């Protein structure tokens, strides 16, 4: 019998990416142990509202996977590796078909086909949706398929288990995981021939975000501490439209704008009138005015920055607060209920006002991490992904894979709405055959590794938790977490300044030192949440340092990373294509070096030069590696061979 036939894989995390990987592995006949904090049906993917992208051109607009690819790469400010993006966009229509076959209740057209709506960063109807709870519906479909494999005996679930770290053999390859039962608190190591981390994003590093309570980034940090590279950490997406809350900020989907929602503030500063009594001509639709082409559907980084500008710089937020109106009141109740019911309900339940009657009050909130664990891929000569290559989605630790929000691919410096559900499912699906190939090449199975290897890791983690259990300082870890969140929200958010980032790094070190003065709040040996929170908190500091240091060192504006000090303004009437002409000319053989003869105006030329210099220096992936608690930052080239980078423009 081949090694592969006896191999077993562990998947950690049961959101869209983890379940897609699990389903596909099981379909290939590879047994999977699936670990999750929560019953997988309750994973954070349920929070995704608006939809999933796939260019099907069913509305005769001339859309295509290539245009989807271009929008994705442009939306990400050209920081993404292009081959993965291209293959993902080409697969997108097939993925939507697959999910449809699994029974996802996508909204329909009159003729019974899947309906598509508009989303940010594109001019096309490309987003399939199931009401305004698309993530939930996609997750349920995958959960059901995985349950089917569970009944068949190919999948074994370990729900209410926490991943603590990978088990690495003497060659540094991943040979399993150590995990903790969150009820009995038992710590155990499990052999596996490959491990997939599908553990989601790190929103909790910011205290309050649109993320769920499981999104603390601890799994990513655990392997980062074991030598895995963490890439593009500083690229944190701020969603322009959320409802503020004490426990978390709740997302108001971009689909609200996709279905015609308009963002505005009163033209008169401090206008306290009921918004419905403010006449049309006294409203400032600032996105529509500045970006006539994309209007309210500019990408998220652009919208968040504009809202920030209106509220903070111009002090024109509603009632002087950092809030603007998101208005859907011009749409019919029936249509809103059918297409946006889920989010209408959320606003009504949590704010207590009917968004069909009253404009919503929204503000930007931390939403998504474009960065994450560094993962590899293999491309062919045409720039597509080599399917089944063992390198696809493997971290720099052999045998350890990462998929979904926890990886850093696809979205570059800014993710387009409705691309995350796609990238999660796509990554999960392509990683399974990659693992199959990897298993086929293994010369020894995890089961043949000495028991002492696993016992050693179990012992190490047990000692760690014994130490935390014995902590008896005066500081409450939950309060310290709030301080961490406040620090990050004040300094590493939409607008970033080097002096403040430098100070934040120092502050983070000081604050992390306070961790040792925390007390363990719960001496219990059963379902002890406080104990594991202490563990998470230490890791959140580690990740906060990665994010902050990456932000400090990157001296440019790109996507979600905005530093006014380094902003290069486009001259009026600038056309992005002129940058392509410029680079072509200055790199042409025989160019005499005199740029003034190239036919650009002096103003334009100045901009082109500066933009090129910026790209030459910064169009690179940030790589963080742990050096005894200090992130070491290096940079890596990006594959931009399919569409040349250029300035973004949405007006």
């Amino acid at each position, binding site marked *: 019998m081949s090694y592969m036939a006896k191999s077993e894989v562990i998947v950690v995390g049961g959101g869209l990416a983890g379940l897609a990987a699990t389903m596909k592995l099981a*379909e290939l006949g590879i047994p999977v142990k699936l670990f999750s904090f*929560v*019953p997988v*049906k*309750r*994973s*954070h993917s*349920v*929070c995704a509202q608006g939809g999933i992208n796939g260019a099907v051109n069913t509305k005769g607009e001339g859309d295509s996977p290539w245009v989807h690819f271009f929008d994705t790469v442009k939306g990400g400010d050209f920081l993404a590796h292009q081959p993965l993006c291209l293959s993902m966009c080409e697969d997108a229509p*097939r993925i939507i*078909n*697959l999910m*449809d*076959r*699994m*029974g996802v*209740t*996508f*909204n*329909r*057209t009159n*003729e*019974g086909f899947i309906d598509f709506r508009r989303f940010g960063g594109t001019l096309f109807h490309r987003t399939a949706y199931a*009401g305004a*709870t698309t993530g*939930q*519906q996609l997750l*349920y*479909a995958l959960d*059901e*398929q995985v*349950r*089917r494999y*569970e009944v068949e005996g190919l999948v074994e679930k370990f729900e209410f288990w926490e991943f603590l770290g990978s088990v690495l053999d003497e060659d540094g390859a991943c040979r399993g995981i150590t995990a903790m039962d969150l*009820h009995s608190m038992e710590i155990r190591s499990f052999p596996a021939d490959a491990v997939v981390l599908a553990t989601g994003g790190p929103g909790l590093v910011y205290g309050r975000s649109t993320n*769920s*309570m*499981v999104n603390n980034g601890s799994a990513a940090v655990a392997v980062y501490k074991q030598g895995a590279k963490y890439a593009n950490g500083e690229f944190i997406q701020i969603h322009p439209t959320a409802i503020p*809350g*004490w*426990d*978390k900020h*709740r997302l108001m989907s971009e689909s609200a704008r996709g279905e015609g929602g308009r963002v505005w503030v009163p033209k008169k500063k401090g206008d306290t009138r009921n918004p419905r009594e403010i006449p049309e001509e006294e409203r400032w639709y600032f996105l529509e005015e500045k970006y006539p082409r994309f209007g309210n559907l500019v990408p998220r980084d652009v919208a968040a920055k504009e809202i920030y500008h209106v509220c903070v710089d111009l002090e024109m937020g509603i009632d002087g607060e950092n809030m603007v109106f998101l208005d859907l009141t011009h749409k019919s109740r029936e249509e809103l209920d*059918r297409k946006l019911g889920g989010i209408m*309900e*959320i606003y009504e*339940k*949590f*704010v*207590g006002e009917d968004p069909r009657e009253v404009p919503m009050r929204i503000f930007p909130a931390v939403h998504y991490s474009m960065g994450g664990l560094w993962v590899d891929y293999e491309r062919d000569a045409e720039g597509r992904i080599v399917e089944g290559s063992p390198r696809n989605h493997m971290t720099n630790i052999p045998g350890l894979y990462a998929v979904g929000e926890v990886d850093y691919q696809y979205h570059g410096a800014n993710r387009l709405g409705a691309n995350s559900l796609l990238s999660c499912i796509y990554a999960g699906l392509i990683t399974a055959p990659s693992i199959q190939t990897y298993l086929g090449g293994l010369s020894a199975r995890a089961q043949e590794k000495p028991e002492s290897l696993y016992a050693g890791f179990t012992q190490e983690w047990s000692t760690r938790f014994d130490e935390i259990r014995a902590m008896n300082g005066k500081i*409450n870890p*939950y309060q310290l977490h*709030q301080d961490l969140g406040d620090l990050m929200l004040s300094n590493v958010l939409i607008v970033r300044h080097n002096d403040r980032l430098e100070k934040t790094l120092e502050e983070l070190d000081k604050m992390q030192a306070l961790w040792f003065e925390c007390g363990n*709040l719960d*001496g*219990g040996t*059963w*379902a002890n*949440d*406080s104990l594991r929170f202490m563990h998470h908190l230490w890791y959140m500091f580690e990740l906060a340092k990665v994010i902050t240091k990456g932000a400090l060192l990157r001296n440019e504006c790109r996507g979600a990373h905005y530093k006014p000090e380094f902003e290069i303004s486009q001259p009026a009437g600038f056309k992005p294509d002129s940058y392509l002409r410029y680079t072509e000319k200055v790199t042409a053989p025989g160019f005499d070096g005199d740029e003034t003869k190239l036919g650009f105006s002096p103003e334009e030329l100045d901009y082109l030069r500066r933009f090129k210099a910026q790209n030459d220096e910064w169009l690179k992936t940030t790589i963080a590696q742990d050096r005894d608690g200090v992130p070491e930052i290096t940079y890596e080239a990006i594959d931009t061979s399919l569409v040349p980078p250029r300035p973004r423009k949405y007006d």
Partner: protein
Amino acid sequence: MTEQRTIELKIKRQDSPNDPPRWEVFSVPYLPRANVITCLKQIQSNPVTKDGKETTPVVWDSNCLEEVCGACTMLVNGKVRQACSALVDQLEQPIVLEPMRKFPTVRDLVVDRSFMFESLKRVKAWIPIDGSYDLGAGPRMSERQQEIAYMLSRCMTCGCCVEACPQVNERSDFIGPAVISQVRLFNLHPTGEMNRWERLESLIDKDGISGCGGAQNCVKVCPKEIQLTESIAAMARETSKYQIRKIFHMD
């Protein structure tokens, strides 16, 4: 000087499945528009009871906090619901929090709902697709059909309906409304319909469809307003038809 407004909570605590339950009362500072989860978080940051006794932070289950994951279901002032969407301003004080009673308690407000997930296996709650390879588009569906399916498929397996159902008790293993409603969902689907008999078969049992006593509590507590009683009635009709067909060997 104005006295600081506070919120009072009375919480049923239990250290483990084998420990006896006890009550603790907490008082936390009032925050406008706060929900029950916010109060529980306030207790975490200062785990001291109202009478000044140090205690452990309360343990509860939660994740999305947007009422789409179903995790934080508990009894709030005796009513089963999600704690995230239970706004303090709309609740009488003291706010009484208890774990659901129809499921085994794990700790404090955390219960074990694995029974529901196991039941989903029993009724084959999935579309039996041929595989994940590219087999083209799925079946077409009318908007009306989609609307019904969407309504049914918003079930979060939260357990509210099970908690409210008088037929779920120590003397019965009634499968509960949610899972029966899932059978309706999958039997409605053009592909799922092909093996509808298998799902109906799984409901023919004293713990299945005939376990419903018609109390109609389920539909009143469902946070997603799923037509659970309609689902049960529809599946009762379908299983009867199926049994008759079976007697006459029509399948």
